[in-house]
């Protein structure tokens, strides 16, 4: 009886079965760059430093159905939204005091200094997914609210609506998260591209984009986030222009017959 080597005997064990995705994540194409120009009559917004957000004054195009939050009938956008729209020439941002245009340089500095609740890593993922057509909102911030004023947004998951948001089931966890004891944070609610998306009833996000920084999330961090958040979690890692999204899922393999 020869030795049977079941693994080696089947060459299809090594079939890839999955598309070759070596180049999938390079979203800098290197060679030719898109020629983006400011649309004639692009949208305009005014930066409000105290809020760390821009208030939209002139809206152009359908993009506002999937960008910005609505408070008391006005639309505001976060730094990442403002920066992305500026980058693609869809938005001009003006200073609070006067009509001086806030440049990309100013916006990049804001991100680099993490002044408005968004760091560079967060922004790269935001831009990457937006360019693929996904809809992103900051986690913990509702798209609309009937009668709330805006409180200061920060990097933390504070709700900016007036108590119509779902209550935090575990308030101690929320406190700890606010104290940023845990390294992993939920940052964006992500929705699949959807031309019928409505801010008034967005439904559950397809997943929540989380960041754990320099290292992969610890078991404990994943547990805390999973207890707080019902939607699937994706942990983002972006480095050298390569964006990867990992899900860590608790399972229980069945007992086989």
């Amino acid at each position, binding site marked *: *009886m*020869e*030795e*049977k080597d*079941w*693994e080696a005997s*089947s060459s*299809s*064990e*090594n*079939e*890839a*079965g*999955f*598309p070759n*995705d070596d*180049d*999938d*994540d*390079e*979203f800098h*194409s290197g060679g030719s*760059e*898109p020629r983006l120009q400011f649309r004639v009559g692009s949208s305009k917004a005014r930066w409000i430093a105290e809020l760390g957000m821009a208030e939209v004054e002139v809206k152009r*195009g*359908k*993009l506002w159905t*999937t960008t910005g939050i609505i408070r008391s009938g006005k639309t505001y956008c976060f730094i990442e939204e403002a920066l992305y729209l500026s980058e*693609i020439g*869809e938005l001009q941002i003006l200073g609070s005091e006067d009509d001086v245009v806030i440049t990309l340089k100013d916006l990049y500095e804001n991100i680099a200094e993490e002044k408005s609740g968004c760091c560079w890593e967060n922004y790269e993922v935001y831009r*990457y997914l937006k*360019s*693929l*057509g*996904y809809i992103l909102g900051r986690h913990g911030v509702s798209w609309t609210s009937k009668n709330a004023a805006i409180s200061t947004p920060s990097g933390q998951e504070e709700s900016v609506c007036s108590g119509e948001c779902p209550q935090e089931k575990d308030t101690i966890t929320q406190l700890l998260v606010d104290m940023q004891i845990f390294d992993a944070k939920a940052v964006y609610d992500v929705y*699949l*591209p*959807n*031309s019928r998306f409505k801010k008034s009833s967005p439904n559950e996000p397809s997943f929540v984009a989380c960041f754990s920084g*320099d*290292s*992969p999330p610890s*078991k404990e961090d994943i547990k805390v986030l999973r207890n707080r958040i019902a939607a699937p979690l994706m942990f983002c*890692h972006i*480095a050298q222009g390569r*964006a*990867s*999204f*990992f*899900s*860590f*899922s*608790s*399972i*229980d*393999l*069945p*007992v*086989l*017959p």
Partner: protein
Amino acid sequence: MAPRWKWKGAEAKALAEPISKSVTELQLSLSKTESSGTLSSSNVLLAVEPEQAELLDRCCFGRLVLSAEKAKKWIQLSFEEAFFLFYSLKCIKISLKGRYLEDEVDTWTYMKSKRPNFPIFYKAYSHLRSKNWVLRSGLQYGVDFVAYRHHPSLVHSEYSVLVQSGDSDRLIVWSDIHCAVRLSGSVAKTLLTLYVNGYFKGEDLNLPVCLENFTVEEQTISRWSPQLSREDETTNSKPNVTPLLSNLKNL
């Protein structure tokens, strides 16, 4: 990921002969002949009758050592496999240097001294084996084990398994995760980590009964590709300049 059966009828065959049934048969057969394995620094060598070799193969324990001998077959078992037969199934004896190791603690201590991570690996191994999953060495895939739903001749393995614990140095940096997930994906398996919880200091590991205090948490790690998940009209899955601009029109 659904199980990938290797040929038409393989699934039916698997259903007709569940692993648990083969294992019970094996257990009875080995007990009856009082089979005994010889312990060495890296494995256990078991002498069995041809029919028993067949049973061991059916349950995927060990590797056959080729020899001209006809009456007896020699099977090389890993520490995990041997200890499972010895401690969990209680169907073989273990001997060292010609002497039976009657006390389980002696075998445990010996194996632990040769491989300090043996207790944790054994807990992970027995955790899945007890659920009737088939586990083989994962070395050729860069992992600890590969898990099959049934015999490898019938089905492709679904999971590549990495064992982790509290003071583990596995999957510490992002490139570890990228590496393990990519490796698994390139051989069409899902990465499964088995996290063994428990106290691993000094005396706690002296007895095999420490195994009862360990628990195992199962977790899969997979990579999601944004290009392939969109439900929109654009079917172009390679990111380049054109979709970027066409998406702008859809905004």
